[in-house]
């Protein structure tokens, strides 16, 4: 092929000219596969829910049992993400700033909730916190019930969300500049003051991102929750479970409505993450 024709051909192309072959094949395959596996099925969901309309969605969301499950899911996810935020920061801090025997092992272990199948997490948490379990039995002596109550949902969601906070915050802690700490100390700040006023503010975007990731994951979590939740309608029933219940009752529009609302919540969380990261890049120069 002569070079003028190459230039002429590429000028009309979608991708910038390159000597590397295979764009058409790989790009085409990517689009088709993405379309068939992800976009078309999701579009079908949107199409179904647009058939319901806003009034239909509102009617489904205000059904008492649905509204209760959405509230349960939303608030307990929020609480769990908050607990993860607190302990995740401590874990990330300890793993990055201190050296102690077993640190590496502990660090690797933080990813367990990503790797352990949710059903396994579910039955083992239920076994731990049930009235005759390792933790459930001593707590039962004080009349504290965790398994088969809303507290069980909280425990499961704390488990699921923890790595999101730790893994988002960890790299930022290790990038904190020692000079800033030293400057703060030489200017007379106490250690606690330095930590709170100099070191934590740059971590805020990462903490918020980790919080939102843990929250978004918790909203959709199913496997680890249903075994420990007890699944009592109006009390400890989560929204994803209600989708399954509705499907078993052949109430496809109801299931679709709940799914659409959940998608909207998790996309809002993702949008928040993107906004936080854009703000963080401007404010701190890192994500």
């Amino acid at each position: 092929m002569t070079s003028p024709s190459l230039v002429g051909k590429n000028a009309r192309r979608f991708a910038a000219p390159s000597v590397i072959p295979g764009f058409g094949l790989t790009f085409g395959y990517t689009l088709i596969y993405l379309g068939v596996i992800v976009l078309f099925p999701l579009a079908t969901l949107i199409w179904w829910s647009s058939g319901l309309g806003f009034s239909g969605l509102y009617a489904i969301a205000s059904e008492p049992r649905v509204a209760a499950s959405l509230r349960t899911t939303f608030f307990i996810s929020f609480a769990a993400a908050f607990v993860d935020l607190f302990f995740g920061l401590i874990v990330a801090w300890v793993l990055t700033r201190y050296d102690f025997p077993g640190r590496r092992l502990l660090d690797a272990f933080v990813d367990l909730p990503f790797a352990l199948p949710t059903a396994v997490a579910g039955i083992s948490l239920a076994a731990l916190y049930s009235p005759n379990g390792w933790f459930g039995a001593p707590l039962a002596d004080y009349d504290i019930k965790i398994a088969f109550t809303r507290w069980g949902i909280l425990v499961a969601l704390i488990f699921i969300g923890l790595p999101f906070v730790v893994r988002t915050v960890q790299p930022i802690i290790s990038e904190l500049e020692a000079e800033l700490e030293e400057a703060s100390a030489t200017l007379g700040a106490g250690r606690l003051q330095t930590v709170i006023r100099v070191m934590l503010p740059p971590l805020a975007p990462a903490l918020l991102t980790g919080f939102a990731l843990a929250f978004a994951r918790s909203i959709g979590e199913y496997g680890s929750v249903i075994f420990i939740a007890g699944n009592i309608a109006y009390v400890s029933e989560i929204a994803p479970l209600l989708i399954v219940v509705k499907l078993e009752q052949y109430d496809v529009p109801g299931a679709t409505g709940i799914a659409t609302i959940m998608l909207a919540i998790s996309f809002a969380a993702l949008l928040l993450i993107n906004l936080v990261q854009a703000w963080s890049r401007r404010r701190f120069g890192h994500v």
Partner: protein
Amino acid sequence: MSEIAVTSSGRSRGVKFRPVTQDSSFARYTLIATAVLFLALFLFAPLAIVFVEAFSKGIGPFLTAFGDPDARAAIRLTLLVAAISVPANLVFGLAASWSIAKFSFPGKSVLITLIDLPFSVSPVVAGLVYVLVFGGQGLFGPWLAAHGVQIIFAVPGIVLATIFVTFPFVARELIPLMEEQGKIEEEAALTLGASGFKTFLTVTLPNIKWGLLYGVLLCNARAMGEFGAVSVVSGHIRGLTNTIPLQVEILYNEYNNVAAFALAVLLAGLALVTLGLKTFLEWRHADALSGRARRH
């Protein structure tokens, strides 16, 4: 312990100096103790109890659980589903990263966002969308029924749902990795006369092999362990459409604790092997993995 904070770390007789960038030993020990206790209660205990419960009646009942034909069918199905969905997403990951990292075209970031989309969809919703497409009341339901093809409540549905939830794993590891590596080496190989395919095999593949393995590892762990999405499309037919996680659920709900936890040991073992290999790759081949990919 008497400690004096100084700006440069140093030691002098009698007094132990602590650099100002270090926390006091009281704060240090308290924080370490808090973190270790929290991880022990929330992460280690749930893992430990899987093994304790599985062997609670000794090794005999543990082994008996694997003699059950339904359990064997579940193991076979899980292996089959992973054997289809992991290679499918591997091929996609290679195609997507090649087109995205080696070429520039408009709308690239939108495409990357769309590829990540399945991670922000609840597993149950992932199952539901396939029911809406292929189920009895779904888009193609009547047509499929008329032609005697069953996707929902059958193996194809389980495979599709698994492919959906594991969709981004390989691609999201390879795209940033190949972007970091650039395309100079490929261009050199092509200019020297290698064919496109040979360039990929001898130049690109060796560069991305550890990242590829990393992505496949995570993809496989999720494919074998997926519960929510598979649960919606499976129909829970014993011996036919139950994967290991679904069989665990059934056994657990029947109060057959030992058998449920015995199968769970398989999955927990898989998780531990995955974590071990992942940690090894991050430690030994950190430079051959993408620094920008989010590590989960």
